[in-house]
């Protein structure tokens, strides 16, 4: 029981090793091994969800003993002479801020594995890398030691590079290395901040310099006169060291989210990546960015976060509007959805920046909701692309007549995404905007016009989704490929239904009963707000 998180993390790694060892003649079985792994993970994560204790004494956030399923093994101890001893632990644990992501990860991974049926070449490498990526993502959501967190965080890049680069589209080389360099640029500087942090923070129990993120959240653990101490705020080249560290960490995670203007890798990576990888990118990778902002940036540097909340809110609003306007201008369906992701993730940033209970809850729900919806949208695009190898919006018309079931799923996904009441995105965006709106009264961080500008984003997303629906699905059937495409554009098959129905169900369920998520994370969000507002 106490090793349940380790099992969740390393199960896919074990499966990857099995796939590596099995001879290539088992090629057709690999996908079932991967699928079986994700199903087991899903069952475990549902089990964790059901047994999750949501009372205030298990809120977590900045109290180590309140984390659940805690695992702590001492890993690296190094005597550094004059500085003191260094302490790195294998420390895992979950609270209300991370637990929802475990279910989301298992679900999105399941869908991505089902989408991998379209992969035909080099199956061994593909599934081994996919499972390695799975390990890294779950690891990021569970790690509470910054060193461990960073290792999992960086470990995500490598499989993604090869997954985009080897199975991607025409410009895959460019997209893969651009993605890798962009993210690495952010994370290398993050490493420097981590080093500065462990110099500053001492574990009060042992007197060692520690990487424990929870201890980093308590200002009392900072050494007097250390570089990131909040009492004697030191400067690096004239800027407050804590503010600088916050900015560096924020940029690292903002690249992942992505926040405009650091988003330019995303359209390339999404368009060139094969469908399962697009699903993982949109469904999980972007959430790692949002989770990092909550768990690392805001929790460790709350003072700097509060003082820059206005700018974060502004970046959120810019992302919402800019992403939506770009989506309106796209002619490629996958690019459109990629930009819609930028826009929707803007709500996450806006909600977090408001530093209100409503806003942060909304941001969390938005991440879960968008994780499911974007996976669904990319899966749907992948279905068309797999059938006719084209996804230009202008090349399709009247698809509703030939693919009625597909159209139903598309309508669910589109309406859910544009924030129709009754679907998860409505709840999530509403709460984010309420948070932004009340912020002026509650803590005075965000002005009201940001909430109003943000709601403009909902309007724009309605415009681009409905316009696309009208162009591609309604009217007389007219296809660029003529009769040949007519034959190839078959309706949804059983495997695809298996992938789409859980995602559609999630969107509806969270839209009607958002309490399913809210109730589990509420105490943690309250503890989080209390911590950052000091």
């Amino acid at each position, binding site marked *: 029981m106490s090793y349940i998180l380790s099992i969740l993390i390393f199960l896919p790694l074990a499966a990857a090793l099995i796939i590596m060892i099995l001879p290539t003649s088992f090629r057709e079985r690999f996908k079932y091994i991967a699928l079986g792994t994700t199903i087991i993970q899903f069952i475990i994560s549902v089990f964790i969800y059901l047994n999750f204790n949501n009372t205030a004494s298990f809120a977590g956030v900045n109290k180590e003993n309140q984390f659940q399923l805690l695992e702590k093994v001492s890993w690296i101890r190094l005597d550094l002479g*004059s500085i003191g001893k260094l302490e790195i632990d294998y420390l895992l644990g979950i609270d209300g801020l991370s637990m929802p992501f475990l279910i989301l990860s298992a679900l999105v991974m399941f869908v991505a594995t089902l989408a991998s049926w379209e992969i035909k070449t080099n199956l061994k490498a593909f599934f081994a890398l996919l499972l390695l990526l799975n390990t890294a993502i779950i690891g990021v959501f569970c790690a509470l030691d910054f*060193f461990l967190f960073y290792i999992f965080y960086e470990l995500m890049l490598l499989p993604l590079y090869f997954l985009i680069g080897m199975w991607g589209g025409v410009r895959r080389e460019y997209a893969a290395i651009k993605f890798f360099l962009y993210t690495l640029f952010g994370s290398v500087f993050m*490493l420097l901040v981590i*080093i500065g942090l462990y110099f500053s923070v001492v574990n009060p129990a042992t007197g060692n310099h520690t990487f424990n993120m929870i201890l980093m959240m308590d200002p009392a653990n900072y050494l007097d006169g250390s570089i990131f101490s909040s009492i004697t705020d030191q400067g690096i080249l004239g800027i407050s060291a804590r503010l600088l560290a916050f900015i560096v960490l924020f940029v690292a995670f903002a690249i992942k989210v992505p926040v405009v203007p650091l988003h330019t890798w995303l359209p390339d990576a999404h368009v060139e990546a094969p469908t399962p990888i697009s699903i993982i990118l949109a469904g999980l990778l972007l959430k790692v960015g949002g989770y990092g902002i909550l768990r690392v940036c805001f929790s460790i540097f709350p003072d700097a976060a509060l003082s820059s909340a206005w700018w974060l809110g502004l970046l959120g609003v810019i992302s919402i509007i800019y992403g939506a306007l770009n989506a309106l201008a796209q002619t490629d369906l996958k690019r459109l959805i990629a930009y819609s992701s930028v826009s929707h993730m803007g709500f996450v940033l806006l909600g977090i920046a408001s530093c209100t209970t409503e806003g942060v809850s909304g941001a969390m729900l938005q991440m879960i909701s968008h994780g499911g919806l974007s996976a669904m949208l990319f899966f749907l695009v992948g279905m068309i692309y797999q059938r006719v190898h084209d996804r230009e919006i202008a090349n399709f018309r009247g698809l509703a007549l030939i693919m009625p079931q597909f159209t139903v799923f598309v309508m669910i996904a589109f309406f859910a995404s544009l924030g129709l009441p009754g679907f998860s995105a409505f709840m999530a965006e509403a709460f984010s905007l309420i948070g932004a709106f009340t912020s002026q009264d509650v803590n005075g961080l965000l002005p009201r016009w940001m909430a109003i500008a943000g709601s403009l984003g909902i309007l724009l997303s309605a415009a681009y989704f409905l316009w696309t629906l009208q162009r591609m699905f309604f009217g007389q059937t007219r296809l660029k490929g003529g009769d040949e495409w007519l034959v190839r554009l078959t309706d949804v098959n059983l495997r695809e239904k298996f992938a789409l129905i859980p995602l559609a169900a999630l969107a509806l369920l969270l839209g009607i009963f958002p309490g399913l998520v809210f109730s589990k994370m509420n105490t943690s969000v309250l503890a989080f707000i209390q911590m950052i507002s000091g």
Partner: protein
Amino acid sequence: MNDFIPGISYSIDNTLGSLGFFLPEIVLVIGFLVVIISDLFLTHKNKQICFILTLITLLIAGFLSFTSLNSVSASLFGGMIRLDHQAILFKLLICAASILFVLFVRFNKALQSTGKGTGDMHSILLAVHLGLSLMVMSANLLMIYLSVEMVSVGSYLMVGYSSRNAKQSEAAMKYALFGAVCSAIMLYGISLLYGFTGTLDLGDPSFISGILAIQDFSWGLAIVMVLVGIAFKLSLVPFHFWSPDVYEGAPTPVTAFLSTAPKIAGFALLINFLWVFQPMGVGGLSNSLFNFNSVLGAVAILSMVIGNFGAIWQNNVKRMLAYSSIGHTGFMLMTLFVFSESGFKALIFYMAIYVIMNMAAFMMVDEIEERSGQKDIDGYKGFGKYIGLLMTGMVIVLISLTGLPPTAGFTAKFLVFSAAWEAFKLSGSPILMAMIMTGAISTVISLFYYFKIPMNAFLRDSESPSVLLPVTPKTYLSLFLVFLLILFMIFPSLLLRLL
């Protein structure tokens, strides 16, 4: 003359007493002689006799060093050399590099098939190894010069060992000329220092007092001249011009050796030399007599920038690795600014990992070159399909060279950054911040050029499948090194507890 007579018995006692600490070097000398003799008389019976004898010699020398790891430090041979924990660690690293080199030579087709055989290569190696050991331990300016020359002469021979074409001869010639000029400058610096202070012993108090009595400019110039010789060994910018040509022209095992062992010894020497200018009990080089911080900081930044940017434009794999090793050396320099235990720990750990990954990288490059004839990154197209296992191992080595998890290269890089941070914290000097920033940015740049290899091997397809010869033991040897890279990531304490 009579003045020296009472000293004789003391000298003899001192020398005899020192011999006990000198066992690994004595083993090397005996091994050297045995290898030369058996090369003359026994090679026709057993072609690999020199290989076996050299390997045994190195293992014994390494073992002897290892057993004395925790002994107290001692000044030997009248202060000519100084043995301490740190010197033994450096010697062990050099020993590891030599052992890997010997195995590499054993399975390298080009060297095995030269007309002269590999006997001389092995005896030269043992001589160079001896020189490197002395370099690590030297505590006297004359000893420094002698050991550096011993290593240099041996290295020239190694580089030109199988020179069959103009390129290899050019490499050896360039190396010898450049090396000769640099050591001449160094010798001139040493003679100036001797003239200023009247002593060659770095530990002698009159050395510092003598220097202080001289004008700043004069002793600054003399020290810079000595540093030139060391910088040449380390191929630091601006004394790096030889390295890409030599690395490309030399036989690949020699390149692998030159990019590791002499650098380890060079760093040890640099530490020994800088130690003198370290006032007792005060941390940070900024407090020493000569402002090394700016000089070394500038050299580190330049080496990282030129090494990494130079590597981007290379198409020959060995040249690329040469430039990248300039960058790595600049990166390693960052550990010296703390000039304390934690800095040296970081340096030694980084070097240990660097030996493993660099040796593995060159072995893989050599394996690919032998099996397919490809020397260029462009030529690696589609190799992921044909030699998947080897290329996968190579990807892990390249990740480690970049310094990313899950490899020990990351842990090493992390420790170096820690040391540099500590130095910045102590001194707060902006050049250290600039250096740390350069280190971080060069990581991103290095990813770009290292990943040209997997990009060609895995992301691109070749038009025609290359002819591939069968696997050699080098593949398994390099994969074992890859295994070590992952092992030391998960259990760094295996190495760290030795430090």
